[in-house]
């Protein structure tokens, strides 16, 4: 944490600094949604028959569904016929090497602090870069191949590994799961795919960086990660979008599968454009993330730092099927100005002696509304299951709100559950005490907030923990008078 203070200071002077639009030559399909659009997306991607059929099934099911209204968030209805469902940077050749990436795109990512240049990139992190609807570059693929690890865009996986895709796609989040998952299944255009073979410990962090660039588009990506027996992978996703007055929809699906003794660690630093100080614009982030700990002693761990988006609605979940499998959820969700977040997790205990841990830290400032919604479900088969949940809320100012909705369903008497919850407020006394020691208001708030989030930051890969701290600093800019 030693560098946090000066860096945050630099950051607090800037507003959302990822809000620029790049001038990238883009190919789009007309707005609106119907079977022709879905066929067109599938054709553009040269997909095998099973994919098109899968999409159409999802679309037909979606037509029968209505948008959920139950999360504690409010927003005007989305007009699904005005959204562009496919936008792709034009110069998308079959990239022989990373050198062929469109220079404007490359500059875009440089500006975001993501180098697509393998030499310059932090050693030990491979990146899949997704702009609007498609993946534009994946780094370190060759190195990973040596270990038998497949890390590529979803489109590439559909072409090169259709058997794996067909086997696992929708196996964790079926297209019938919910409104946004159904929509995603029908129209998703790209995303990341990863397969780690038996017994392999992935030697570097894998990451996907999502960028929405084109106006009026929705981003619907899909991520599928499979960790075969005894393997390990740590995966990180980041995202940003330009500042625009209208709202844009992001409806992603992430599926994780961990087989016997495998472990998947999935971290998110979510920084979509949150809208301006009056609450205009911003991304609607409606995401379904779920992992199945299928094998014995397998483990799925979600860590998320949610600072962006006008509205966030997501509940990364773990289905604990394998005996002694483990699920974890570590979350920091911050809402400032008029942001709303309704987030949490579901831990579904099915196997014997399954264990889960939930640590949720909600921070509300300005008029922000922050809800934790979590379900711990112990099925009859889950003898000896254990859960520990801790939900803490921190309020900055008196116009914001924090809400906690813990749901517990226990169908096996041998289960043990613990739940702790606290709400605290950053007090004027605390700020003044810091001021009196020479520390500015903003730094004082950052310090207290970072302290509050420590248990979650600890779970993030090192360099991203620093990034996350900076982000909180920026997001809280102006939250104290």
């Amino acid at each position, binding site marked *: *944490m*030693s560098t946090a*203070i000066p860096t945050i200071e630099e950051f607090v002077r800037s507003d959302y600094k990822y809000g620029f639009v790049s001038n990238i030559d883009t190919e789009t399909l007309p707005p609106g949604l119907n079977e022709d659009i879905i066929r067109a997306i599938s054709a553009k991607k040269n997909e095998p028959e099973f994919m098109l059929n899968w999409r159409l099934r999802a679309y037909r099911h979606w037509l029968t569904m209505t948008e959920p209204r139950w999360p504690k968030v409010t927003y005007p209805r989305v007009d699904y016929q005005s959204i562009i469902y496919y936008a792709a940077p034009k110069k998308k050749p079959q990239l022989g090497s990373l050198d062929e990436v469109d220079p404007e795109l490359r500059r875009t990512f440089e500006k975001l602090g993501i180098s697509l240049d393998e030499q310059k990139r932090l050693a030990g992190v491979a990146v899949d870069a997704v702009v609007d609807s498609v993946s534009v570059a994946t780094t370190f693929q060759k190195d990973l191949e040596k270990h038998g690890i497949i890390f590529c865009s979803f489109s590439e996986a559909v072409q090169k590994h259709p058997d794996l895709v067909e086997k696992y796609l929708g196996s964790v989040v079926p297209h019938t799961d919910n409104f946004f998952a159904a929509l995603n299944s029908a129209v998703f255009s790209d995303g990341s795919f990863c397969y780690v073979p038996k017994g392999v410990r992935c030697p570097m962090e894998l990451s996907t960086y999502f960028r929405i660039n084109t106006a009026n588009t929705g981003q619907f990506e899909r991520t599928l990660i499979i960790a075969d027996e005894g393997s390990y992978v740590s995966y990180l996703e980041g995202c940003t979008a330009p500042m625009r007055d209208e709202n844009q929809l992001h409806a992603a699906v992430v599926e994780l599968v961990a087989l016997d003794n495998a472990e998947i660690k999935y971290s998110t630093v979510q920084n979509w454009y949150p809208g301006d100080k009056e609450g205009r614009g911003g991304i609607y982030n409606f995401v379904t993330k779920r992992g199945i700990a299928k094998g014995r002693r397998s483990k799925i761990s979600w860590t998320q730092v949610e600072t962006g988006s006008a509205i966030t609605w997501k509940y990364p979940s773990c289905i604990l099927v394998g005996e002694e499998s483990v699920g974890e959820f570590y979350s920091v969700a911050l809402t400032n100005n008029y942001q709303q977040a309704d987030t949490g997790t579901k831990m579904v205990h099915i196997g014997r002696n399954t264990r889960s841990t939930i640590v949720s830290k909600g921070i509300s400032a300005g008029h922000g509304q922050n809800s934790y919604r979590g379900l711990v479900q112990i099925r009859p088969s889950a003898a000896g299951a254990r859960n520990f949940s801790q939900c803490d809320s921190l309020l900055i100012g008196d116009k914001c709100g924090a809400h906690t909705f813990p749901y517990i369903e226990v169908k096996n008497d041998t289960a043990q559950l613990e739940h702790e919850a606290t709400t*605290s407020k950053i*007090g*004027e*006394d*605390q700020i*003044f*005490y*810091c*001021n*009196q*020691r*020479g*520390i*500015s*208001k903003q*730094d004082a708030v950052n*310090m*207290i907030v*970072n*302290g*509050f989030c*420590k248990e979650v930051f600890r779970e993030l890969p090192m360099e991203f923990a620093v990034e996350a701290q900076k982000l909180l600093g920026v997001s809280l800019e102006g939250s104290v008078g």
Partner: protein
Amino acid sequence: MQPILEIRNLQAGVEGRHILKGISLTIQPGEIHAVMGPNGSGKSTLAAVLAGREGYDIVSGEVRYLGQDLLELDPEERARAGLFLAFQYPVEIPGVNSTYFLKAALNEIRKHRGLSEMDAIEFLGFVKDKIKLLELNEDLLKRPVNVGFSGGEKKRNEIFQMAVLEPRLAVLDETDSGLDIDALRVVSNGVNKLRSPQNAALVITHYQRLLNYIVPDFVHVLMDGRIVRSGGKELALELEERGYDWIAREQRLAA
């Protein structure tokens, strides 16, 4: 020589209450001033106004600190300029590590003084002697700021922070309250170590006993928002013996 602090006819209040009713006080470098007075007379209010706490209204008067207008500065600017307040009730800050907090504070002050920032290793070396001086349990510094500290530990921690930050002017608000005899000696030691021809201190206390350890150059009696009497260290002994009533009576007689 330029005074460290010059308060001229300061009147101030909070939430519509008029509390300080015309205070004048000049502190020269090297001096220690004690302020005594009954409960509710305005001692902590004076400290809060000097430190720049929000919510206080300055009705009239002027405060100059090292030649600049103190009341114009933000609280953090005052702190960086070397004004330190040891709180009557130190504040707990959960989640913020004590060492980290103090290092951040020190570096703000060093930046202001044009010195380079200290990294964690330099800092630990720098504070080592001061920890010893205040006979502080090092484990405290690994804990969040003041969280779960005993009353005495909190007070000792204030003086430890003071020793690290090396202020030009230290305002100690009842730092002796709640200290046992040994702690009183240790804390006084800390304050005396800071004593130098360049620095000064304003020591608020109820007990003459502290002034046996920290020997003041001047003693002021604050009653109902005014300094009603000033004198040398003997005044504290007289107060100890006779209480405040006789001063109040003399005041009434004079009026």
